[in-house]
């Protein structure tokens, strides 16, 4: 009977997450399933699988066609979750490099980093909507206004932290790739 290991973990940087999955594989723990922060691993030969995380975007049909193409090249889809795909290949210990040119890497880094602009923007919109509604609707008590204002401020502060802190590694990666792209293909 195959024994599995379940680990709950959360990442804000897909690069770090990918590194961790490959590290686990090197230690003989092959990643086989993911759902909402829960990773499942089974024992396998150390380094048997190389993993990569790919941001698929919103085009569902395009994503299906892409994953099917990858399958034809020997790359398995372990899981898809919230617009990203966890991929693996028996690659003789070599990293699974899906993007071999700078433009393709830049496009993937931009897609991956977009999440730390989209989520904060949504939070700011919700904060503004709640606050404006509370202060413009007649009959709202001062207590309700105060609570809404505090929630709004918390949401905005969280949005700023997410954008500045979590988005930083992606912005640095994009900057570096753009610099390289300006001198070579």
């Amino acid at each position, binding site marked *: 009977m195959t024994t599995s290991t379940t680990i709950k973990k959360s990442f804000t940087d897909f690069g770090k997450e990918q590194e961790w999955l490959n590290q686990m594989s090197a230690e003989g723990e092959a990643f086989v399933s993911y759902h909402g922060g829960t990773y499942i691993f089974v024992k396998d030969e150390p380094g048997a699988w190389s993993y990569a995380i790919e941001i698929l975007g919103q085009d569902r049909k395009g994503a299906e066609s*892409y994953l099917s193409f*990858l399958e034809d*090249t020997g790359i398995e889809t372990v899981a898809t979750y919230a617009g990203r795909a966890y991929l693996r290949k028996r690659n003789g210990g070599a990293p699974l490099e899906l*993007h*071999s*040119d700078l433009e*393709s890497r830049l496009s993937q880094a931009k897609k991956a980093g977009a999440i730390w602009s989209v989520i904060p923007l949504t939070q700011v919109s919700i904060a503004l909507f709640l606050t404006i509604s509370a202060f413009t609707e007649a009959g709202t008590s001062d207590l309700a206004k105060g609570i809404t204002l505090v929630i709004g401020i918390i949401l905005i502060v969280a949005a700023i932290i997410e954008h500045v802190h979590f988005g930083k590694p992606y912005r640095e990666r994009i900057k570096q790739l753009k610099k390289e*792209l300006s001198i070579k*293909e």
Partner: protein
Amino acid sequence: MGRHEDSGALSEPTFYILLSLHEPMHGYAIMQNVQAITNGRVAIGAGTLYGALTALAEKNWIRALNEHVSGRRKEYVITEQGRHAFSEEVGRLSRLIADAKAITKGN
């Protein structure tokens, strides 16, 4: 591929994909073929290859051969338009080498 279109140059993966597709080939075979003809110097990632094949098919430089046959790997081949673009690129690269040799005296 916009940047390359502006400068008229093909990226290295695009160049070798078009070169490979002078014979019909599916994705994985293209990756292996490019590695073989460049002695491993150029390795095209599957993600890069997919993006390039999609863009080249949209430009009608390549076409899929067995698009509607289920269960078979899709094969691609270069079109007349693609052959023309490829030959223009080979001409451009030859001029580039000639310019370089003229100044460096072949060193």
